[in-house]
């Protein structure tokens, strides 16, 4: 199976602070991967760097469905098939979700868009949110559901779900996990970024990558989660213990 996302030697800094120190990562089409790591390890930075947020200076290569996206503006990356579900989706006052959907449809040469909006709207029970402002007054779970809805209608090649389970109660985590499984397809590679392993109780990722101090230090099957539960992130990379130490006490905050 060909590769949805191929990340090679991605480095990034914020001001003088080097955050990503050469990230390599691969997500094949049809698979769901999880990127785990302690706070400050660079998970969310990787997400923003791949999407093209301009506050970082970044180098390296990221292929989305075989096309290089590094150096491109954010919107072009999105139209090439990269989707970011935000950890904290920002409220856009005065702009309804339907306004946004209309614009998303207009920038895509995509005959199936309108039909997909309606079917995803039904599937995710989004009708009552569509006339409201984007993310306006939504609960944490509703915001994540709106992100999943926008992901479904965008039909990306790669979806990066940044801390998709953060700030959610356990029922909402379960729902999000089910939605990810629901949207799993042979034309999509999913990378779930998470701090906690609890979402793994409700879904079956194909691979888990562990990031510590700006690098992917380990990649393996779902069994890695159990390993993390036993030992925490510290064991993953000697020498980064100081950074990772605070996470040992509560790697699983369920």
């Amino acid at each position, binding site marked *: 199976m060909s590769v949805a996302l191929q990340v090679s030697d991605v480095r990034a800094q914020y001001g003088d602070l080097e955050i990503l120190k050469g990230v390599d990562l691969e997500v094949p089409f049809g698979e769901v991967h999880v990127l785990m790591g302690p706070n400050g390890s660079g998970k969310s930075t990787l997400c923003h760097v791949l999407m093209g*947020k301009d506050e970082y200076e970044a180098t390296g290569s990221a292929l989305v469905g075989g096309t290089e996206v590094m150096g491109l*503006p954010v*919107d072009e990356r999105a139209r090439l098939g990269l989707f970011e579900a935000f950890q904290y989706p920002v409220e856009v006052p*005065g702009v309804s979700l339907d306004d946004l959907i209309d614009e*998303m449809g207009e920038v895509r040469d995509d005959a199936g868009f309108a039909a997909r909006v309606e079917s995803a709207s039904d599937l995710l029970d989004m009708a009552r949110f569509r006339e409201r402002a984007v993310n306006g007054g939504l609960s944490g779970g509703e915001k994540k559901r709106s992100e999943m809805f926008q992901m479904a209608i965008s039909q990306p090649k790669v979806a990066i779900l940044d801390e998709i389970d953060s700030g959610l109660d356990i029922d909402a985590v379960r729902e999000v996990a089910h939605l990810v499984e629901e949207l799993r397809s042979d034309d999509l590679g999913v990378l779930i970024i998470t701090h906690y392993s609890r979402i793994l109780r409700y879904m079956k990722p194909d691979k888990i990558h562990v990031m510590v101090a700006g690098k992917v230090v380990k990649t393996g099957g779902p069994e890695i989660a159990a390993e993390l539960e036993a030992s925490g992130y510290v064991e993953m990379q000697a020498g980064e213990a100081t950074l990772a130490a605070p996470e040992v006490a509560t790697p699983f905050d369920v």
Partner: protein
Amino acid sequence: MKTLDAQGSAAVGVSDPSWLAGRRKTALDYYEKLDMPSSIEEVWRYVELGFSIDDYVLAEGPGEAHEIGAGIAAALANNAGSVAMVDGHTVSADTGTSAAVFGTLSSLLVESPDLLEGYLGTLIDPDLDKFSAAHHAFSGEGVALVVPAGAAVIEPFFIDVQAATSGTVSFPRITLVAEKSSQASVVIRYRSDDDVDALVVPHLELFAADNSNLNVTVVQHWGAGTRSISHARAVVGRDANVHLGEAGLGGSMSRLQLTVDLEGNGSSANIVGAYFGDAAQTMDYRYTMHHAGVNTNSDMFLKGAVQDEALSVFTGMIRIDEEAQKTNAYQTNRNLILSDGASAQSVPNLEILANDVKCGHGSTMGPLDEEQHYYLMSRGLDEERTNRLLVHGFFNEALAKFPEPVVADVVTSWIDTKYRTAQEAGRV
């Protein structure tokens, strides 16, 4: 041409009822004594007028009237009555068939000379400034509405005020009265072509008697060469509500000084504004919300944007009297600065003498929000489209609170066009 002097004032007031003639005479004295305002005065701070009122003369008759634009015409196809004025002269009047008295001052002062004595010209003092004095001394025409007690008129009344002749000054006077337990909605539109160098000095007086609801929508769309210096004042009775939406789009200089007096216990006011300046426009809003009654509520919510070298000013004062306990008062002014050369002033003030009140004010100023921008672009929207959607959303938040949604929709499309035009010209 009549000039702004004793002779001009006498000519304009030739058929005044005696009560009005007396007021006109008093105002003329003030006009002759007062100087043009200066930015040294607090209420004129930040703004340089750069002209004198007597640079302009009174128009002998109306210049050529424009048809109502398609958008507004469609929005107001069902109205309860309409009047169109050009250069301070009535060009058409349809008094409608509603329960209310609606028409031009020139007609109403002849038909029922005493009807307006307790209202017309009583709210805005002639000694407020030279413009106000001039208005009282030289205003020759206007529109009045008196909604009788208990009557509810659902369709809006429409007042179309145009300037068409360069070099002229006009003083449109609009007096709206909602008697006890009545209800009405009025839409006022100000407009001129870009090449009309005229001065317009409107007075808008709102009387909302006990338990009434008075909705007013003002759409200011003067051409680029027109100046307007307007005063408005509302007095709100017990359990009555005034809902005023003001959209400011045009004019080289446009100013609105508004005072709302919440006199009756339980009275309330919703004041919403949306203004968008470009080129070298100055938009100047001076609002005062005066809580006098107990248990009164007010909300001022204004959103403004400036681009190119435009300047906007908002000063908001919430004044709560010692007796006005259980008051809720809020003011919000949010500003978008879309070009480096544009600027905005936002000055919220509170003066609270009562001790049992809830009061809040907020003021923000800045460019488009970066996080919102990034979020929308991550959905595949290009830069221009993203900015347009954000500007649209910014104003939509205010326009959604306007009293007449169909008019607000038309204003939204004008604002969208104004921004898109600037984008296409590479100005933003």
